[in-house]
């Protein structure tokens, strides 16, 4: 009996000690935490924008003590959904929101942060340095199973002098929802009416059944699948340039609206961006795909921040405004030291001004 009661006592003492310790710890922590993070913002969404935010946030928060920004790579659809629901203050998306979506949640802003591009890559042994030329209609035919071999007359016709192998093509698409699928299928839709009428475009589409065609997850998955599958073809975000080079993949020259075959580089991407600069509306929801111009690269897009114009409190709204204004500024987040790392291009001045005008609406 006695041993038992003393044991209980001991346990109680121990418990009290732990409790006391915890309370002390909390007391000690509390004032420090209040000083360190007055505002916490959550950024979530696009996996293509995620590396850029991870470059921005440490630099920016170092200049702004009291601000904490959490970044997450969850996919563009989730970015939009969480910005709309209010879970995240900044949703990152490679695609702008659709009109029906906006009708359902008015007050959501689509703010371009930078310009990105996409490459079409292939793995044809012996020809990966040859620069195979491809067009929207040819890609649409490959991805709908109408062109099944590399030496198909339609491919041979636009690649004179290249000895194409008599081997089946493995088209690789993204299985997960992706802004890359969105811009790639927009290129197919805008260049090939047949594709536009049957499959159309979206972050996930109902891919036509192509026996042997495979799906991969994320840009890293695309690079890996294309690298280890000879005679395959894939579309990959330009931020993965280094991985593409490491995997030894070929980059296709794509046919633009004017009929010329171009590679993505600052000149061709910039040409496409300036071709559509004047057409960008105040709400900035516009596709840059298949832009006119002799040297325009056909698959480029604005990378968006999706933000609710009504934030939970004025303090949070001010923090979002300040951060995004810095992000689109050429001397801030749009500086080459950030964008070059992820192979993005800065916003043209006029577009940056439009972005700032939208940012000013956040309250």
């Amino acid at each position, binding site marked *: 009996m006695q041993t038992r009661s003393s044991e209980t006592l001991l346990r109680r003492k121990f418990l009290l000690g732990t409790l006391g310790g915890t309370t002390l710890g909390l007391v000690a922590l509390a004032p420090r935490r209040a000083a360190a993070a007055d505002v916490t913002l959550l950024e979530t969404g696009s996996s293509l924008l995620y590396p850029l935010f991870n470059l921005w946030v440490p630099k920016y928060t170092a200049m702004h003590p009291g601000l904490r920004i959490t970044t997450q790579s969850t996919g563009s659809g989730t970015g*939009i959904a969480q910005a709309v629901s209010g879970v995240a203050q900044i949703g990152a998306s490679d695609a702008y929101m659709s009109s*029906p979506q906006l*009708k359902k949640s008015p007050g959501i802003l689509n703010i371009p942060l930078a310009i990105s591009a996409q490459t079409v890559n292939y793995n044809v042994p012996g020809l990966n340095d040859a620069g195979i030329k491809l067009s929207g209609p040819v890609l649409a035919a490959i991805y709908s199973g109408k062109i099944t071999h590399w030496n198909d007359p339609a491919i041979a016709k636009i690649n004179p002098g290249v000895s194409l192998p008599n081997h089946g093509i493995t088209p690789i698409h993204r299985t997960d*929802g992706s802004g890359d699928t969105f811009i790639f299928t927009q290129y197919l839709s805008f260049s090939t009416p047949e594709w536009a009428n049957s499959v159309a475009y979206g*972050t996930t589409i*109902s891919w036509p*059944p192509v026996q042997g*065609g495979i*799906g991969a997850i994320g840009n890293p998955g695309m690079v890996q699948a294309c690298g280890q599958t000879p005679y395959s073809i894939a579309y990959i975000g330009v931020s993965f340039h280094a991985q593409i080079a490491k995997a030894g993949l070929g980059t296709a020259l794509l046919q633009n609206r004017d009929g010329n075959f171009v590679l993505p580089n600052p000149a061709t991407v910039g040409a496409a961006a300036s071709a559509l600069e004047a057409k960008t509306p105040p709400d900035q929801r516009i596709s840059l795909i298949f832009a006119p111009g002799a040297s325009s690269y056909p698959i480029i897009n604005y990378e968006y921040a999706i933000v609710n114009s009504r934030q939970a409190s004025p303090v949070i709204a001010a923090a979002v405004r300040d951060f995004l204004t810095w992000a689109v500024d050429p001397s801030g987040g749009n500086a080459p030291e950030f964008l070059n790392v992820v192979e993005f291009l800065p916003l043209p001045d006029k577009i940056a001004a439009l972005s700032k005008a939208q940012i000013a609406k956040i309250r």
Partner: protein
Amino acid sequence: MHTSAFRIGTICLAALIPGMLIAVVLFLALYSWPAINFNGLGFLFRDTWSLGNLYADPVSVHGAQVPIGAQYGILVFIVGTLATSFIALLIAVPVSLGVAIFLAEGAPPRLRPTLSLIVELLAVVPSVVYGLWGVAVLVPLIAHYIAPGLSAVLGFIPFFAGGSPTGFGLLSSSLVLTLMVVPIITATVYSALLQVPRPDKEAAYALGAMKFEVAVRAMLPMVRGSIIGAIILGLGRALGETMAVLMVSGGALNYLPATITSPISTMASFIVSQLDSAEQDPTGMAVRSLAEIALVLFIITVIVNVIARMITKGLHVGLATRA
């Protein structure tokens, strides 16, 4: 007084579990109700899945607002789920029984604890690790060696004659699942074999049975119930496995697998891969249809479990009457 408070407390806690189960089923059923209405029974038998054009204005179909061209059919995913799980069990069951018998009877007693620990560790490896291994090692292996080999040896059966295998597909998914299921079945059967009474084994030896015969003829029948239970546990894991399968399945859409190396999709992995885009559907029908897939997956799992329980029960009754 003290006891009754304790009693009430534990009853409340115990009620949490069935309560949660009912809550999940209710939520799934209620949430997917508009999709169930819209899709009808054809949901299970159509092989075309399309979210429709999310960038055009939605249209009204049978009184429901949906994107233009939206249609939801999950036959491809049901087939993918059942086929991968079936092939995985086909390989995993004999392998697991062999390993369990070896651990219980054949292995040197000094090594036994270490070996069984390794098996148990394999059972708790996160599935994404198996998926990563699958992509990096298994997929190229299948593409370059296993698939051409199968095609050369068994090519006269159309199911094994592969066109241009990439390694991503039915076979790689099944093999990854096999790896995940083997430790579960092995560990369960092994611990059941340890329970077999010594006199029974000695009786078998006394009849002149060899070690192999003792294990297969005397011991395995005695733990039949446990074996079936273990297989059901493994099947449960295989049916619901998401990440590892998603990484190696090749994500087939709109067509059924023609050969063992064809790309496939399973129900669980498809839900994950589609959710992000489905959230952009302004009508919400896409997400509700995904919830309907979850409901179907749940029902399939329940059916499989009930059948398994009936089999085990029947076995116990059979053994009892014989005794």
